[in-house]
C-alpha cells in the first residue's frame, strides 16, 4: 500500500472545537488562502519555520555570534532582532540557543506514522463519539496524504472529519472526501470581491464546491468567521447564511466564529507584521443577530463552535 509523506505542523490532542466528541486534530502545513485574520500563520505558509520566543531569550548573545552573515542577528535594548531576509543559517540557531528561545516548527512524516500517533487517542474517541479532524492550513492541499492516513484510521473504525476552506478541485480530493464522515466547511464571505480583499482569492469555486458536497449528501458543519471591518457587513453576512440554508439538510450546524487576536504573538515570533493591528474582537452581542437569523432559517447554530 502506498505510504505518502505530508508536511505536518502538529497533532493536537483533546480538541473540543473541531467536531463532535473528543477530537484529535492534525494540523497540516500550507494554505491557498491568505486570510488577513489568520491565527495560524505557521501553518498558512508552506515549509518548516523557525520561531523566536522573546520571553525565553536570556540575551546571552550566542545566536548573535553564530548568525551568518555577521550582523544578521543583533542584540538591542529590547531584545534580539533577526533580519530574516539576510540570515542564512536561522535553522542552526535553534541548536545554538541554550534556552529554547528558537523553535523549529513543522515536520515531514509518513501517513502511517501520522496514523500511528493519532490512534493513540482511540479510547477517547470511543467513549465520546469523537475522532480525527484534519485541519491546517488547508488539509486538502495534501489530499493523498489525508486519504492514506484516513484509510488506516477507517480500518480501525475511527471517524474522520475534514476542516477545509473549500478552494480545491473536487476530482483531486475525491478519495479524501469519500473517506470522511464529516466536513467542517469555512465560508468567509458571500461576495467574491469581499472574499478576494480579505483572503487573496475569489470564492466562486468555494461556493460551488459547497453545493457539490451537498449533492453528495456530505454531513457538514459550516463555519462563518466574522471579522469587524473585513467581512461583517450585515447584508453580506445575511447572504452567506442564506446560502448555507440553501444547501439543505446536509448542514448539521452553523458555527459563527468571532475573530480573535490569539495569533498576534505568533506573527511576532515569526518576524511577520500582523495584518490587522487595530481590529477589535467582536462581542457575543455583536453577532447575536446573526445567530438569531440562522435559527430563524431553521439552522442549528452556535457562537464559537
Amino acid at each position, binding site marked *: 500500500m502506498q505510504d505518502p509523506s505530508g508536511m505536518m505542523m502538529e497533532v493536537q490532542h483533546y480538541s473540543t472545537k473541531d467536531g463532535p466528541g473528543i477530537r484529535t486534530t492534525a494540523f497540516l502545513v500550507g494554505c491557498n488562502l491568505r486570510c488577513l485574520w489568520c491565527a495560524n500563520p505557521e501553518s498558512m505558509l508552506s515549509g518548516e519555520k523557525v520561531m523566536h520566543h522573546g520571553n525565553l531569550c536570556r540575551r546571552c548573545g550566542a545566536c548573535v555570534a553564530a548568525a551568518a552573515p555577521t550582523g544578521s542577528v543583533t542584540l538591542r535594548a529590547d531584545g534580539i532582532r533577526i533580519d530574516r531576509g539576510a540570515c542564512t543559517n536561522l535553522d542552526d540557531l535553534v541548536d545554538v540557543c541554550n534556552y529554547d528561545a528558537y523553535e523549529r516548527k513543522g515536520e515531514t512524516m509518513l501517513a502511517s506514522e501520522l496514523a500511528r500517533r493519532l490512534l493513540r487517542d482511540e479510547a477517547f474517541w470511543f*467513549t*465520546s463519539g469523537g475522532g480525527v479532524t484534519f485541519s491546517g492550513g488547508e488539509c486538502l492541499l495534501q489530499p493523498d496524504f489525508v486519504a492514506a492516513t484516513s484509510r488506516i484510521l477507517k480500518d480501525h473504525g475511527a471517524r474522520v472529519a475534514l476542516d477545509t476552506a473549500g478552494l480545491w478541485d473536487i476530482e483531486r480530493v475525491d478519495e479524501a472526501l469519500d473517506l470522511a464522515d464529516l466536513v467542517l466547511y469555512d465560508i468567509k464571505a458571500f461576495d467574491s470581491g469581499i472574499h478576494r480583499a480579505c483572503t487573496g482569492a475569489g470564492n466562486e469555486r468555494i461556493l460551488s464546491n459547497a453545493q457539490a458536497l451537498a449533492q453528495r449528501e456530505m454531513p457538514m458543519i459550516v463555519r462563518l468567521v466574522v471579522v469587524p471591518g473585513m467581512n461583517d457587513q450585515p447584508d453580506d453576512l445575511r447572504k452567506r447564511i442564506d446560502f448555507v440554508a440553501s444547501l439543505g439538510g446536509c448542514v448539521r450546524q452553523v458555527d459563527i466564529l468571532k475573530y480573535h487576536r490569539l495569533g498576534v504573538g505568533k506573527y511576532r515570533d515569526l518576524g511577520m507584521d500582523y495584518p490587522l493591528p487595530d481590529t477589535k474582537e467582536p462581542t457575543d452581542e455583536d453577532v447575536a443577530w446573526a445567530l438569531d437569523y440562522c435559527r430563524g432559517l431553521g439552522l442549528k447554530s452556535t457562537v464559537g463552535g
Partner: protein
Amino acid sequence: MSQSNIGMSVVGDSLAVVKKLVFEDGTLTLDQLRTALDEDFQGEDGARVRKMCRAVPKFGNDDDYVDELTADVYESYLALLPNYTTDRYGRGPTGCRYSMSTSNITSYVPNGFEVGATPDGRLSGKPLNEGCSPCLGADRSGVTAVINSVSKLPNKRMAAGQLLNLRFSPASLSGDENLAKFESFIEAMPYKNIFHEQFNVIETSTLRDAQVHPEDHRDLMVRVAGYCALFNTLMPETQDAIIERTEQSL
C-alpha cells in the same frame, strides 16, 4: 499499610537522559553530567548541558522510550515491597504488609528542597513530581498523552492508589457540551488502566491573584494531592507548584 513514594517521574526522566545521552548517543560523559549537576546547570556550559537534558523525551508525552523506563522504576519498587513488614507481623489478623501508593500529599515540594539538580534538567531545590504525574511542565503533548503515559505504569498493583492530578482551565469545561466531553474523558480511564484521578479547575490568573491578595480568596479550595486544602493555607512553594502544573486547555 500504604507506602507512598516520591519522585518516580524524576527518576524515570533522569534515567532516560543518562541512557540516551551517555550510553546511546555518546554526546555527554558521566563526568560532564555530574559537573553540570554539581553546579546546578549554572554558566553557559551548564545551560548547554541542561538544554541537551531537557530535549530527551519526558514521561507524560506518550513516548514509550521514557515511559517504559519510568514503569521499570515502579516495578523495581514493587519488587522490593514484599521484603518489608510492619511490627504487626505475626501478631494476628490485622494486615502487616505494605501496599504501594503515589499519594505523597504535598511532600513532593519540601522533599525537593533536599534534592540537588537532577539529570532530567530539574534545578536544585525545585519540587519533585507530584503523585504519578509528570514532572512540572514536562507534559507538553496534551492531556490524552499524559493519560497514555500513566496507563503504562503497573497501576493495578498500586493497591493504595495511583494518584494522578490534572489541572483544567474553567473555560475548557464550561457549557453542557464541554462537560459531556469531559465525562467521556473520565469514562475512558478504566480502559486506560487508571483508577485514581483528581482535577483542579481554576484559572492560573485566579491562583496568582490569590497569592497577592489572599484576603480576596479566603474560600479558594484546591485539590493538592490526596486531599483538598484552602489555597491560602499552603506554603508559597506548594502554591507555585500547583500553578506550574500544566493547565490542560482543550
